[in-house]
């Protein structure tokens, strides 16, 4: 049985599955239920400064997009940080931490970008026994208009400054949560590191309008006929999050900086992908909001079963394993040649591979062979693009098969070169020519 115990910047939890700072972690009632369900830790819903709490809209807070059978693929929200009194939250956090000493409890914090604001809240949080703090520099709506959240996260200098204050005024580990609403996620990560952060967590939600009501012409969620951009999350954002995690994991300037991976994690498989791309643990929100806290059981057992099958004993055995394989396009091996293969026994003859290839790609899949409906890859036309694999409704029916060195590529008429060669040295690359001259 794989050992899923997690040690993230010194914060210990029985498994790497934390609930992200969000509605599911807004109060003791929910967090107690989450811990009972088996979650390894929670990042408490973001605390604001002392005084009258923020207010939320009183209409719909969420918008969504769906896939087949109304499966929720993407969710956005216009909710703000906790709208409960600071001291109520602190009191509940302290009690929950006492009740659940083996679980991680992290306080998410967002206060104005002033040294005193941070200096005064940190001791209050520390007093609860929280295991660490997460700086909310990501929230893209509402708070950002008040100079907080993403408004800080989009300016690396501010990030560095606030992280420095936090490291100065608390002994608790500092996790800096990054916004994806920037051009290059490495810049804020580097700034957080310069400020002395213990870790970064990402991604926060993405600026988004999920849909527009075509009767009222109001964006959704609609508040009295108007809508605002909200923070997008859920399965649809996972690819964006994975890339950003990998960018930081492989950036020489931030290499080794612990990462808490967030963004659309719905199954154990999603979690494992974040872990192997360099995350030390993961945070989940939308999946829990869609299915309830019980999903953590699937995540724990799934991750454990996969690790057992592969012989990985601890999380250290898998974390970051895929990072060395993340490369830049220019270094990809241009001598690697793959062709699509259709398993005729699995093929249900829907024809989608054919029409995708015929209409939009390389005309490399038959429709009829000997007068019969039959879909087969024409290797002399196939560029190995993988589109057919992706549009095929049957899993593993179409696969990409790499050609062995020395085998003839019927499309080019050349045999497969066993040697690695990339764009930097390719004769068609003007820069490569210049270098050679």
């Amino acid at each position: 049985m794989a050992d899923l115990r997690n040690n993230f910047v010194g914060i210990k939890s029985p498994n790497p599955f934390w609930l992200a700072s969000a509605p599911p972690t807004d109060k003791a009632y929910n967090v107690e239920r989450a811990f009972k369900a088996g979650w390894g830790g929670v990042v408490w819903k973001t605390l604001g400064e002392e005084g009258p709490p923020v207010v939320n809209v009183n209409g719909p807070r969420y918008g969504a997009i769906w896939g087949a059978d109304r499966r929720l693929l993407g969710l956005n929200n216009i909710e703000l940080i906790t709208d409960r009194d600071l001291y109520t939250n602190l009191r509940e956090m302290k009690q929950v931490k006492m009740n659940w000493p083996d679980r991680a409890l992290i306080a998410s914090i967002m206060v104005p970008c002033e040294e005193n604001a941070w200096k005064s809240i940190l001791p209050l949080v520390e007093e609860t026994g929280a295991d660490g703090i997460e700086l909310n520099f990501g929230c893209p709506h509402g708070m950002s208009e008040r100079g907080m959240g993403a408004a800080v996260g989009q300016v690396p200098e501010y990030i560095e400054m606030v992280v420095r204050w936090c490291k100065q005024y608390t002994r608790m580990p500092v996790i800096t949560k990054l916004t994806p609403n920037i051009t290059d996620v490495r810049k804020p990560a580097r700034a957080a590191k310069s400020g002395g952060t213990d870790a970064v967590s990402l991604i926060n939600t993405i600026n988004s309008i999920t849909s527009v009501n075509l009767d009222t012409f109001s964006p959704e969620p609609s508040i009295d006929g108007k809508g605002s951009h909200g923070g997008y999350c859920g399965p649809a954002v996972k690819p964006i999050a994975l890339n950003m995690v990998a960018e930081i994991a492989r950036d020489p300037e931030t290499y080794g900086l612990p990462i808490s991976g967030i963004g659309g994690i719905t199954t154990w498989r999603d979690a494992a992908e974040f872990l192997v791309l360099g995350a030390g643990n993961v945070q989940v929100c939308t999946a829990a909001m869609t299915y309830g806290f019980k999903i953590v059981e699937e995540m724990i057992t799934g991750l454990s079963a996969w690790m057992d099958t592969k012989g990985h004993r601890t999380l250290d055995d898998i974390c970051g394993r895929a990072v060395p394989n993340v490369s830049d396009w220019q270094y990809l091996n241009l001598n690697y040649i793959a062709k699509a293969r259709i398993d005729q026994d699995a093929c249900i003859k829907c024809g989608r591979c054919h029409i995708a290839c015929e209409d939009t790609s390389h005309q490399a899949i038959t429709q009829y062979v000997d007068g019969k409906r039959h879909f087969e890859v024409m290797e002399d036309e196939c560029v190995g693009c993988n589109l057919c694999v992706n549009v095929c409704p049957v899993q593993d029916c179409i696969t990409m098969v790499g050609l062995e060195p020395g085998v003839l590529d019927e499309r080019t008429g050349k045999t497969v070169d066993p040697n690695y060669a990339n764009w930097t040295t390719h004769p068609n690359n003007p820069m490569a020519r210049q270098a050679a001259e």
Partner: protein
Amino acid sequence: MGTTETGILSGRLSPVEYERNFSDLHPPLDEHEALVASDRCYFCYDAPCMTACPTSIDIPLFIRQISTGNPIGSANTIFDQNILGGMCARVCPTETLCEQACVRNEAEHRPVEIGRLQRYATDIAMRENRQFYQRAEPTGKSIAVIGAGPAGLACAHRLAVKGHDVVIYDAREKAGGLNEYGIATYKAVDDFAQAEVDYVLAIGGIEIRNNQMLGRDFSLSDLLSKHDAVFLGLGLAGVNALRAEGETAEGVEDAVDFIAALRQSATKADIAIGRRVVVLGGGMTAVDAAVQAKLLGAEEVTICYRRGKEHMNASEFEQDLAAAKGVTIRHWLQPKRIIARDGKVAGIELDYTSITDGRLTTTGETGVLTADHVLKAIGQTFEADGLGIITLQSGRIVVDAEGRTSLDRVWAGGDCVLGGEDLTVSAVAQGRDAAESINHVLAAASQPAVAVA
């Protein structure tokens, strides 16, 4: 379960039981169900379901339109190919047509519910009386259609769209043909056949003359003198004779008459049924009659078919439906003699049969079934009275690929033509295509002659 009294009796059940037994066989999908069902469609390219549909409805497109919340557009897609798409959605043996071809069968053995989705879309459009077609400029041409069944209605509608005037002559009191008189009640509830006739006629330019029978009330030459073209959608008016001793005993009835009477009855309580019913035949009519006999309160209903299960024309689905309703299906039994007592059916003696050297023969063994009601569903025949010199073969009208008969200006389609499939949907396709052919020929005839230099 009604009274077990022997004899052919009406009112075997309570009103509530009649109501329940003759309600919709497949209740319509609601919006949620339709969305879930439509999500399953893969939007196949050159879709096999579409190829399997005799009217070539663009099934992937109409299902995608449902899934995107456009049922009206979906109905338009359906009606473009099949103006009787509403009835076809109810009566098509989809399990042997579109749904059999669905690629979902390959991986999951469960096709997309194409028939029910088609009903969903067409029901909405018809309920809202959304009409999708406007008549072209009047052509001044007039076409006679004989028979207001599926072939005739489809033909008339397409001709009306093209700007022609149409007169439909029908021998029955109501239009609709088999849709009105020949379909099991639970497949077309709420007087759907008449609602559909009204929907089709709403295009305008179509006049229906009821109680007008070819050969009795008018002749083909009458019509040819009054109209520019004639379409024959006569259907099959005759039934095969049993040719067994005792056939005239009281209690031996044609299944088509039984089914027609049921359809015309408002409460079904007035339809008499025996206690022990034997249905002879192996097609859809046999199943429709047997199931409805059971639903009317018969204690025992047995279908006797003279060949094996694999030879039955009734689809697997229909056979299962009969079994589920408590009908016993027995194979390799051929009627030998109706046993009558006091002039009334008391039983039926049957020969056991087998196929020897490719021919059906009796084995010499016989058996007797007690019965007080025998329904004959042993096939319908084409009554060719009044057709004159039109070429027939095997008792059906010979037509070319466009539906033209051997007689100039006369087209035909539906069950009355050679190679007809006894399917509503095929009749629709043939009527529609004949209309296109008629339109083409009439248009060519009205072109001014081009001078040849």
